[in-house]
Every structure is written in C-alpha cells, then in structure tokens.
C-alpha cells in the first residue's frame, strides 16, 4: 500500500469518486446534525459515553475475565487471540469441525481487520457478507471505503452493473430486468441473500458491545440481515475486540443513544440484537467468542493514544472530515479509514512503517472530527502526539530528512529574535528578487509569484504566493517607533 499522499493523489484524480463521496457525506452529515440537535443534553451524553468506555478500559483485565466467566456460564466457549492469525485459526477450526464449506457473516470491522474472509477462503470455506453494502463491496471484488457505508464510493448505476455481472456466479442471479431504483436493488439483494440464510449452518459475527456483568453480546444494524445470521444457523462464532467490553448492562444506555444518531442519523437503531451463550431449542446451539487483541494492548499502553479505544465505530468523524470527503477510504490503506483510521492504525500496528507513518499527517488538524465524536476522542491531540512519535523514531537517522533539518534551523532561528530579524532581512531581499521574476499581482495590488522551484513547487503547483515584503513588522516598529515617528 502506498503512503497516504500518493494514494490520495490517485483517488483525487477519480472525479466520479469525489462526486459520490461529496454527495454521500453531505447527506449523512446533515442528517446527523439534525438529530443531534434534537438532544439538548448531547454534551452530557457524550461525557457519559466516554466515561463508560474509560471505566472499562482502565480496568480491562478484570472486565474481560468477568466477561469470560459470564459467557462460559451461559454455555459459550471463549477463545483468546493475540493476533489475526490466532483469531482466524479459531474460526477455521470451528468450520472444519462442522465440515461446512460456507458461512454467512454479519457486518463486522474486527473480522475485516484480521482478514478472516481470506483466511476462510484459503481453508476452502466461502464467507458471504450479508450486509447490503458489504455485499456490494464483496461482489464488486472491492475494498470497503467507509466504516458504516462500505460502498459509499459506488453509485446506483455501478451497483446495478455489479449485481448483474456477479450475482449469478455465486448464487441466485439478479433478475434480468434489474433497474437502478434503490428498492429494486434492495429486493434483488434480499432474494440473493435469503437463499444463503436458509442454507448456512454456521455464522460469523462481531459485536458492538460485550457486557461483562451479564455476558451479553450486542449487535446494532439497520437491515435485519444480521439478526438472520444470529438466529438461523446452528453454530455462531463472534470475533470481538477486547476494547468492546462494557462493565454493566445499565452502562449500555448512553452508548445505545449516542451510536444511532452519530452514525446513521437515526433516533433509534432499527435492529438491536443481544445474545448470551446458548439457549436450548432457540438460536445457535454452539456459540464461540473470540476475544481479539491484535494491537489493542499496544494502543492501551500509549497514554495519549489509548482514548482511541473508546471508539464505537460510528463513522461520524469520517463524514465530517474534509480530507476523507475528498480522497475516500482506500487511501488510508486499512479497514479503518478517515480520522479514526489515521490514529488507530499507527496505534494498533505501531509506527515505523512508511505507510502507517504517513497517516498521522493525513489531516489538516481542523478539529471537525473531535467535535463530532460521540465519545469525545480528541483526534487532533492524538494526531499531533503520533506525529511526534514518527518524528522521534527518526531522531537517530544517520542522514536526517530535509524536513528535520529545516525544523532544526527554524528552532534555532525562533530561539532568539535577533536571529529571526536577520532571516527576515534575507527574505525581504528574496522578495525583491521574486517580485522581479514574478510579474503577477494579487487582487489588492500585492506582488506574487506563480512558479517556484524545489520544495516550494508543492505550494505553487496550484496556488500563487505573495512575495515577502521588503520590511518586516518588527523592522517597521523599530524604524517608526510603532508608527509614532
């Protein structure tokens, strides 16, 4: 995966993508703003939601052990997975033990994070995504580009084309008279999926929350397809990140109120499914829960970054992010895109890889994400913190980057006003030269340049640049005694 600036450049060239994204994010953003404004105590709710997650995270080990205990008491089997390979192995083993060659899946970030579908495919097991948008992505042989709306980068016409081309190859074909009406597309997906729900004997899910006190897993969804997976098959495996734990049933309250408004802009979630182990004669008769670390304890060890583990994957930060809106999710090189992806990926994987290291810089630090986040993750704070980790990781380099040299020089200059004044005199001289070369004037009369060589070309590629004035403010102040002379 290329570093963010390169991946972004490619995405920016795709005008259809930019159009689809701008339209979709604006729609969800407006809807969210409307329903959030309806809640007068939204700020208190945010604080309450953040507090619940913090309580669980500060006491994570005890909460997880309690969760294991209550789940086992309800007849579930609990597995602990340190990384993706261990988690995938558990799911593959369960599939093998039951001799299944296909599973139906509830939309889940955790299973995407660990590449479960690919691992199952390698073991000869087909994994069918049942969330409509996930299905579009899977059939399109594509990668999800949004947490909540994985096919946000596709429009209706593209979806129709994907259904016509691919459905027949993997199951019930799309009707030949398929149009690009949303209702018609949804109906085709329903028919296609129904066949799989009724046939599958094993399902895989994630969980939005896991209540330690009661041993309850919780999934929120809008379509009801998840509920089909959770109730019809005989065997259910749920892969749950260890940060999903919530201490008590009562503490779900603020989270269940924050999530739907923040994510889909709905007042209440259409389908909220909860399950605790096995109940005889009803639902899956064998339930496995895989508690997944995969970098989460690493993130927890980071005093500034650990707040990212509060994330409830609502995607509000994506929808308000001006960078995400223009480049889409693929540029982040991960199932976690947008502002949360820019901090979560380096926290989970650690810094030091060029792609991961580019992510904390993929933001203008405008702060819209923090404002939108229902659990008050200060994403700009974590971004700056991670930038410093990336920079610190290169302090020992034998050949420092030009940027590091420039920052060291700036540091020296800004350490003393006399040094700064000297630099300003040089820039005033440079300004005089540039004005001769530039031959352009900004509205209002100020001379400017259109083309500069070297690193400055990154600026002047599309933007004119005012030339430095001959006299800095401080020189003017000294010369005129602050305008009094």
């Amino acid at each position, binding site marked *: 995966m290329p570093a963010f*600036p390169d991946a*972004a450049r490619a995405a*920016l060239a795709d005008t259809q993508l930019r159009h689809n994204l701008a339209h979709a994010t604006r729609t969800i953003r407006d809807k969210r703003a409307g329903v959030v404004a309806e809640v007068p105590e939204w700020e208190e709710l945010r604080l309450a939601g953040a507090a619940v997650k913090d309580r669980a995270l500060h006491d994570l080990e005890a909460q997880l052990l309690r969760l294991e205990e209550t789940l086992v008491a309800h007849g579930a089997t609990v597995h602990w997975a340190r990384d993706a390979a261990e988690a995938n192995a558990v799911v593959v083993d369960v599939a093998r033990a039951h001799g299944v060659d296909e599973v139906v899946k509830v939309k889940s970030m955790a299973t995407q994070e660990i590449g479960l579908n690919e691992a199952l495919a390698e073991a000869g097991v087909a994994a069918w995504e049942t969330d409509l948008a996930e299905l579009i992505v899977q059939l399109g042989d594509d990668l999800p580009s949004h947490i909540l709306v994985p096919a946000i980068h596709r429009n209706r016409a593209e979806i129709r084309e994907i259904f016509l081309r691919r459905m027949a190859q993997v199951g019930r074909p799309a009707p030949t008279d398929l149009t690009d009406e949303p209702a018609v597309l949804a109906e085709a997906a329903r028919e296609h999926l129904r066949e799989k729900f009724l046939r599958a004997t094993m399902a895989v899910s994630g969980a939005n929350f896991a209540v330690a006190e009661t041993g309850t897993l919780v999934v929120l969804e809008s379509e009801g397809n998840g509920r089909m997976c959770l109730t019809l098959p005989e065997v259910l495996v749920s892969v749950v990140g260890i940060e999903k734990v919530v201490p008590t049933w009562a503490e779900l309250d603020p989270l269940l109120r924050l999530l739907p408004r923040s994510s889909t802009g709905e007042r209440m979630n259409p389908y909220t499914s909860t399950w605790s182990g096995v109940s005889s004669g009803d639902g899956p008769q064998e339930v496995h829960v895989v508690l997944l670390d995969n970098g989460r304890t690493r993130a927890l060890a980071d005093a500034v970054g650990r707040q990212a583990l509060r994330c409830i994957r609502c995607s509000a930060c994506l929808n308000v992010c*001006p*960078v995400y809106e*223009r*480049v889409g999710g693929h540029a982040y090189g991960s199932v976690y895109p947008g502002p949360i992806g820019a901090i979560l990926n380096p926290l989970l994987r650690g810094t030091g890889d060029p792609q991961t290291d580019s992510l*904390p*810089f*993929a*933001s*203008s*630090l*405008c*702060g*819209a994400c*923090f*404002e939108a986040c229902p659990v008050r993750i200060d994403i700009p704070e974590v971004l*700056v913190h*991670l*930038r*410093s980790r990336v*920079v610190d990781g290169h302090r020992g380099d034998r050949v420092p980057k030009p*940027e*590091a040299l420039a*920052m*060291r020089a*700036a*540091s*020296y200059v*800004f*350490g*003393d*006003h006399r040094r*700064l004044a000297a*630099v*300003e005199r040089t820039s005033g001289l440079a300004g005089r030269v540039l004005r001769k070369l530039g031959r352009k004037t*900004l*509205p*209002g009369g100020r001379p*400017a340049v259109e083309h500069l060589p070297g*690193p400055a070309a*990154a*600026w002047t*590629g*599309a*933007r*004119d*640049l*005012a030339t430095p*004035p001959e*006299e*800095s*403010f*401080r020189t*003017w*102040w*000294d010369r005129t005694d*602050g*305008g009094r002379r």
Partner: protein
Amino acid sequence: MRVALMVTCVNDAMFPETGKAVVTLLRRLGVDVEFPAGQTCCGQPMVNTGYLDEAVPAVRAFTAAFAEYDAIVAPSGSCAGSARHQHALVARRSGDRTLEEAVAGTSPKVHELSEFLVDVLGATDVGAYFPHRVTYHPTCHSLRMLGVGDRPRRLLEQVRGLELVDLTSADECCGFGGTFAMKNADTSVAMGSDKARHVRDTGAEVLVAGDNSCLMHIGGLLSRQRSGVRVMHLAEVLAGTER
C-alpha cells in the same frame, strides 16, 4: 492594563500590514499596545509537524517576551490557540519545571483579536468604515480550538458601509493546515478549491478571515483562478475608517 501585541511569525515576515492594522485599531480604542521585541513564533509549525523538542526555544522566547504583560493579543486564531493549548504540552515534555511555570503564567493571558475586542474591551462597534461586499471565513482553530463563535461576525456587522454575505459551508476547513499544505499538497488544493468556489459564488469583493495563513492559501488559489476576489485580514477591515 499593559497590552502586548503577539504579531506571529507569519504576519511579521509576510503580512506586516496586519500587525500595523492591529496597532491602529487598538490605539483608536484607547489601548496603548506594546510590541515586545523578544518575541519570535508560537512554535506551532514545529509542534504540529511533530517536532516537539524543536518548539522549546520558541516557547521559551515567548514566555520571556510576554511574562510582564496583562494581556497578549494575537491577530491569528491558530497561533493564539497554540499559545493557549500547546505550550503546556511542549513545556511538560521538555521536563523544565521553570518553563512549565512560565507557560502557566502566559498561556491564559493570550487572546485572539476578536476575543480581545469583544470580551476584554467590550466593543463590537470599533468605528470602522469599509464600503464593500464581504464574506467571512471562520478559520478552524478560531472556531474549534478557541471557540470564538460569532464574535468576528458581530464586529463585521457593525462596520459602516460593509455588506456581509453568507459563505456556503463556511465551517469547513480550507485545507491549509500548516505543513499539511506541502506534505499533502494535492488534498490541500482540492479542499481549498472548493472553498474558493464557495467564495466566488457569494459574489463578494473581499474574503475576510482572522488568520493570514488560511488567507494566503485561499487567496493563492483565488488569484491562480483569476477570480478578482481580494483577501484581507479581519484587523485590516476593522482598522479602516472614513478618512
């Protein structure tokens, strides 16, 4: 009350007119503003690029230059925000207790220009005259890091002759973002182009904001697009009078 002007490094070297406008404006309102010569930069360029250690000398110079003043006024939301919220971080990491204490002394005294005018001086009508059609871009750090709210608008609404027109998606970032404008130049330009388009759609002659860096970016795009729209700092508009 001793009031100091924090002119910011960008204004000092690139946009001295902004500093002069603040001086004119504050004197007109009866404030004898001083310019502490020892000041350099708030350190934000280093902090936001991840060079926290490199920001220490700037923060040290800042605390030394401004320690004795009662109020510090900056014509930049982002530099005021940095001085108020980032200096503590830099000082803490440096492990220098004296610096931490000095920061605790200066940080709370920093005001962005519109905050100082409205909150400290209690002025919304600053006696300005500017007979032009104007649109206003609230910069991200003024808006979110400082929460200046509608103070700049309230000031502009009192300017005689000025026609204030609404900017579509005003709250959205222009894409400057400090070194972001260079490190992610393509994305930065894509964001800025949309901002420039919204500005052109207003039919305004002048785009006003409280941060010259954002104006340098949007203005650079507006100029490249030959839009004819001029960018001006809030201080310059407020400093204008009939004569």
